[in-house]
C-alpha cells in the first residue's frame, strides 16, 4: 500500500491540505496518533451529554475561501456569530461590548467620553493594518534573499502594497508591527479598563505581556478575521470547534481520502535524502511519495526525523524557534447559567467573551508570574459560554463554559507540571470566576483542566504553544518557521510541513494547510483543483 501523500496529524491544517491534495487526484492518507481527530480544533464529550470545545473555542480566522472550496457547509459546518462580551472590574462594575456601534460608544462613554470618541480612529487604523495583511495570508511569503523570479515577483507585489500607502501610513505600519500593545493603545485611549479590553487579543496564545514589543501585531492577528464580512468579529462553530475538523474529514472522505486514527508515527522514513513514508509506533511502515507534517516544526524535525538527515544549521534554527507555551484551558460542564452580578439582568454581554483583568498593569503582572516559572496567581481569562447561542452542545438549561487562561508556563520553576500544580491552577481560575459570579462553583458538574503539559501530551503542541510557534515578527512571513524554509518545504525532499508553525501562523485559519497543498501541487506540476485565490480586499 503506497500513497501519493501521507499527512501526519488530523488537525485542521493537515485535513485542509489533505482535502486539496485529494481533490487534485492524489491518493491521500491522514494518520492521527489519537483515537479521535481534530488536533486543536476538537470537540469531545468528556461528561455525558456535554460537548466541549476542548482546545480552540472560537472562530474568525478560518478562511472563508477554504470553507467554500471544500464544501464544508454541505459537510455540516456552521459558523455562528456571537454578541456581547464584558470586562469585569475589580470595583464590581464592567465595560461591556456591543455589536451596535452606538450602543458600544455609549458604553465606553460611561468609562471615558474621550475614549468613546477615540474609537473610530482606532478602528480605522486597525482596519488599515488588516487590509494590508489580509492578502498575504493565502500566498507563500516571498523570500527577500532569493533571486528566483517568483520571489522577485512576490517581493515586487509586496513592495507595491507598501508604496500604495502614504508616507504617514507607512511609518505607522512599521511601528505597529514592532510595538507593544500597551504603547499602541496609549496613543488612542486614556481609560485603563478600555485599554485592558482592547488589549485582550494581543496576549492570547503568546508568551509575552502587553508591555512586550510585538504584542500589537498579535492583536492584529486576532482582528484580521471576520464572520461574514464583519471584520474583527469572532464566532462559534456550531457543535463546537470539532465541527470544523469533522466537516473537513467528511469533505476529505468524499474526495476519496483516508483517515486512520489511533496510528502514531514514530519516524519519517528518509532514503537518499527523500521522504518515502513513515514508521509507526507499532512497527508498521506506510509508504508514500511524500510526507506532509501537520505537527509543529520542532516536533516534526527534532522528534520524528533522524537528525543525521538534516543540516546542522537547520536543526539549530528549529531548536531556536520559540514555541513557549503560555496558556491553559478549563472546560466546564455547568448545571445552569452562572449569574455575573455586575451585569444587569438580561444583559446580552454574557453571550460573548468575558474577562476579569481590568488593566494592562494587571495583565503584565500575570505575565510576571510566567517569567518566574509559575502560573499566574491572578490569571487573565477569556471566558465564554457558547451554549447561550449554540443549542447543540448541552441539554437545555445546562451550559458549557470555555475558559482560556494565561499565563501558564511550560514548566513550573524548571520542573514538570504535577497533577497538584494542575489542580491548583484550575482552582485559581475557578476562584476568579466565583468572585464575579457568586454560586458559580455550585453549578460545576465537571472540569477538564489543561495546562501546557496536557496540551503537549495530547495535542502534540510543543511546550503547549497553541500557535505552533509564537507570532512575533522574528517568526513571521519569510522567517516562519525558519529562514529559507517559509515555502512549506524542508531540507528533506518530499517532506513538507503544513501546520501553524508555517506562514501565516495559528488561530484555526486553515491557510497554512491550503498554502502547503498549493506548493506541493505546484511542485508536482499538477493544477490545484477547487482551490480559490483569496477574496479581493476592496
Amino acid at each position, binding site marked *: 500500500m503506497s500513497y501519493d501523500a501521507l499527512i501526519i496529524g488530523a488537525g485542521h491544517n493537515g485535513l485542509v491540505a489533505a482535502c486539496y491534495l485529494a481533490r487534485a487526484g492524489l491518493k491521500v492518507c491522514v494518520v492521527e496518533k489519537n483515537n479521535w481527530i481534530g488536533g486543536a480544533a476538537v470537540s469531545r464529550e468528556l461528561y455525558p451529554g456535554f460537548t466541549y470545545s476542548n482546545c480552540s473555542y472560537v472562530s474568525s480566522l478560518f478562511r472563508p475561501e477554504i470553507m467554500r472550496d471544500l464544501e464544508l457547509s454541505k459537510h455540516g459546518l456552521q459558523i455562528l456569530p456571537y454578541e456581547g462580551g464584558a470586562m469585569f472590574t475589580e470595583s464590581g462594575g464592567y465595560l461591556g461590548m456591543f455589536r451596535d456601534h*452606538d450602543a458600544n460608544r*455609549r458604553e465606553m462613554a*460611561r468609562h471615558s467620553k*474621550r475614549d468613546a470618541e*477615540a474609537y473610530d480612529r482606532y478602528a*480605522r487604523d486597525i482596519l488599515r493594518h488588516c487590509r494590508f495583511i489580509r492578502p498575504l495570508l493565502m500566498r507563500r511569503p516571498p523570500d527577500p534573499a532569493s533571486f528566483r523570479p517568483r520571489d522577485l515577483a512576490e517581493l515586487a507585489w509586496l513592495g507595491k502594497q507598501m508604496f500604495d500607502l502614504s508616507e504617514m501610513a507607512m511609518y505607522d505600519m512599521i511601528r505597529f508591527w514592532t510595538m507593544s500593545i500597551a504603547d499602541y493603545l496609549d496613543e488612542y485611549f486614556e481609560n485603563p479598563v478600555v485599554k485592558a479590553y482592547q488589549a485582550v487579543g494581543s496576549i492570547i496564545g503568546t508568551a509575552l505581556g502587553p508591555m512586550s514589543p510585538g504584542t500589537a501585531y498579535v492583536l492584529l492577528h486576532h482582528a484580521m478575521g471576520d464572520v461574514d464580512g464583519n471584520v474583527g468579529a469572532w464566532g462559534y462553530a456550531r457543535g463546537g470547534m470539532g465541527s470544523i475538523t469533522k466537516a473537513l474529514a467528511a469533505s476529505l472522505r468524499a474526495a476519496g481520502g483516508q483517515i486512520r486514527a489511533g496510528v502514531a508515527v514514530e519516524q519519517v522514513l528518509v532514503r537518499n535524502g527523500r521522504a518515502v513514508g513513515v514508521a509507526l509506533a507499532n512497527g508498521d511502515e506506510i509508504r508514500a511519495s511524500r510526507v506532509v507534517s501537520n505537527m509543529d516544526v520542532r516536533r516534526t524535525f527534532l522528534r520524528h526525523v533522524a537528525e543525521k538527515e538534516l543540516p546542522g544549521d537547520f536543526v539549530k534554527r528549529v531548536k531556536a524557534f520559540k514555541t513557549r507555551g503560555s496558556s491553559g484551558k478549563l472546560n466546564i460542564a455547568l448545571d445552569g447559567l452562572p449569574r455575573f452580578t455586575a451585569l444587569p439582568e438580561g444583559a*446580552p*454581554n454574557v453571550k460573548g467573551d468575558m474577562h476579569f483583568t481590568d488593566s494592562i498593569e494587571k495583565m503584565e503582572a500575570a505575565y510576571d508570574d510566567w517569567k518566574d516559572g509559575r502560573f499566574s496567581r491572578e490569571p487573565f481569562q477569556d471566558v465564554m459560554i457558547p451554549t447561550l447561542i449554540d443549542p447543540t452542545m448541552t441539554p437545555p438549561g445546562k451550559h458549557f463554559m470555555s475558559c482560556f487562561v494565561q499565563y501558564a508556563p511550560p514548566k513550573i520553576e524548571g520542573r514538570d507540571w504535577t497533577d497538584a500544580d494542575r489542580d491548583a491552577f484550575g482552582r485559581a481560575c475557578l476562584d476568579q470566576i466565583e468572585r464575579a459570579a457568586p454560586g458559580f462553583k455550585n453549578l460545576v458538574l465537571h472540569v477538564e483542566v489543561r495546562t501546557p503539559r496536557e496540551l503537549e501530551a495530547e495535542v502534540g503542541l510543543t511546550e503547549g504553544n497553541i500557535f505552533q510557534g509564537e507570532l512575533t515578527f522574528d517568526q513571521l512571513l519569510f522567517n516562519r518557521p525558519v529562514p529559507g524554509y517559509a515555502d512549506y518545504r524542508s531540507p528533506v525532499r518530499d517532506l513538507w510541513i503544513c501546520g501553524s508553525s508555517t506562514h501565516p501562523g495559528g488561530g484555526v485559519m486553515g491557510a497554512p494547510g491550503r498554502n502547503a497543498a498549493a506548493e506541493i501541487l505546484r511542485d508536482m506540476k499538477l493544477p490545484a483543483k477547487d482551490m480559490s485565490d483569496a477574496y479581493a480586499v476592496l
Partner: protein
Amino acid sequence: MNALTHYETPLLQTPFHARTSAANKMHSWGPWAGYASVLTYEDLAMEHSSIRNAASVYDLCPMVKYRIEGPEAMAFLNRLTVRNVAKLSVGGVQYTVWCDDAGHLIDDGTLFRMSPDRFRLCCQERHLPWLLDSAYGFDVAIREETEEVAALSLQGPTSASVLAAAGSDVTGLKPFRMADFAFVGGEVTISRTGFTGDLGYELWTVPELALPLWDHLFAAGAQHGLRPIGSDALNIARLEAGFIITGYDFTPAPQCVREDRLRSPVEMGLGWLIDWEKGHFTGRRALLRAKPKWAFVGLEVDGNIGAEGAILYHDQKTEVGMITGACWSPTLKKSIALAQVQAAHAAGGNLWAEIYALRELHYAKMMMRARVVDRPFFQTDRRRATPPARF
C-alpha cells in the same frame, strides 16, 4: 448617562421623542448619530412641499455639539478651523470646516459665538479627542454637550410668521445671527440658520423645555401650514440648496480607511472658506502645497430619473467620478446631483451619468448627459430678506 441598559435601547430617544413618535405615522425610523430619527412622518412629497411652501419642523437633537469656552477659545478655534473666527462677532454663526495636519477634511459644522469666550460647535461626527488634542497649549475647556441641548429646525416661507404667532419677533434677525427669547420660565435661542436654503430658523433650548416648545410651536403654526418633516424630505431640500453632508458627500478623515478617499476642503468646493491670511491653522501648510486631484460639482442631469449613486463618465467611456447625492427636485423640476469628479473635469463639458432605473424587476440602463452648474441649484430671496417677506 445611564447606559447600564442601553442594550435595550441601542438608539437613544431625543427629548422630542414623545411628539415625534406620535407623529411618525409610517413608523419610519433611521439611526442618526446614535439616535432614533424620523425618516418620513407621513408623506415625503407633502413634507418637502411644506419646506418650500409653508413651514416645517425637523428634530435636530442628534447633531453632535461641543461647548468650547475660555479666554483663548477664539484663538483655539482660529487654529482649529479654516475660517477667520476673529470675524465672528458675539451672536453670530459661521459655517466652517476643519482639517487634519495633512489638510484632509475632518468635518463641517456651524460655529455659534454665544459670548466673547464661549462657542458652540455643531457637527455630524464626534471629535472629542481631536478637539482636546488640538487644544494643547490653549487656555480653553471643551465639553461634549449633545444631550444637554434640545434643538428644532423651523424652515420655510412662513417660519417667521409661525414664530411671530408663537410670540417671538424675529423680523430683525439677519441670516447667521441669533437672539435669545424668554420661554416658560426659561429661554430659547433662535438662530437664523438652516439646511434648506430657504427662510428658516433653528431653535435651541434645554431638554426640559423640549415638549412645551414643540407644543407651543405647533399651536402657533396651525394657521401657517406647519408640519413635522423627516430626514428624507430634508435631504431633498439640502440637495436643492447644494449643501453637503459629511459621510455622504465625502468620507471624514478620522474614519477613512482607504487613503485615496481622503479629500481636502478645496477638493470639496470649500476653498472659499479658507482664510490664508489669518495665520496658521491646522492643515494650512499641507493645503498650500497640495494640488487638488478632485473637484466637487453640482450637476443637472438630463431626463427625469434621480441619479443617486451613478458613476460619471467622460465622453461616455472613461470613469471620472461619482454622484454622491441626487434627486428629482420638486422645486426646480429637474434631476439634480452633487458629485466628486477628477479635477480635470471640474468644468464638465462632456460628462455622463450611468443610471439604472428599476422598473418592475427590469433595469432601464441610461447614459444621461450631466451639466456642471453653479450651486445652489435653488435660490430664493426669502433666504436673506430682512425683515422676512410675509410669505
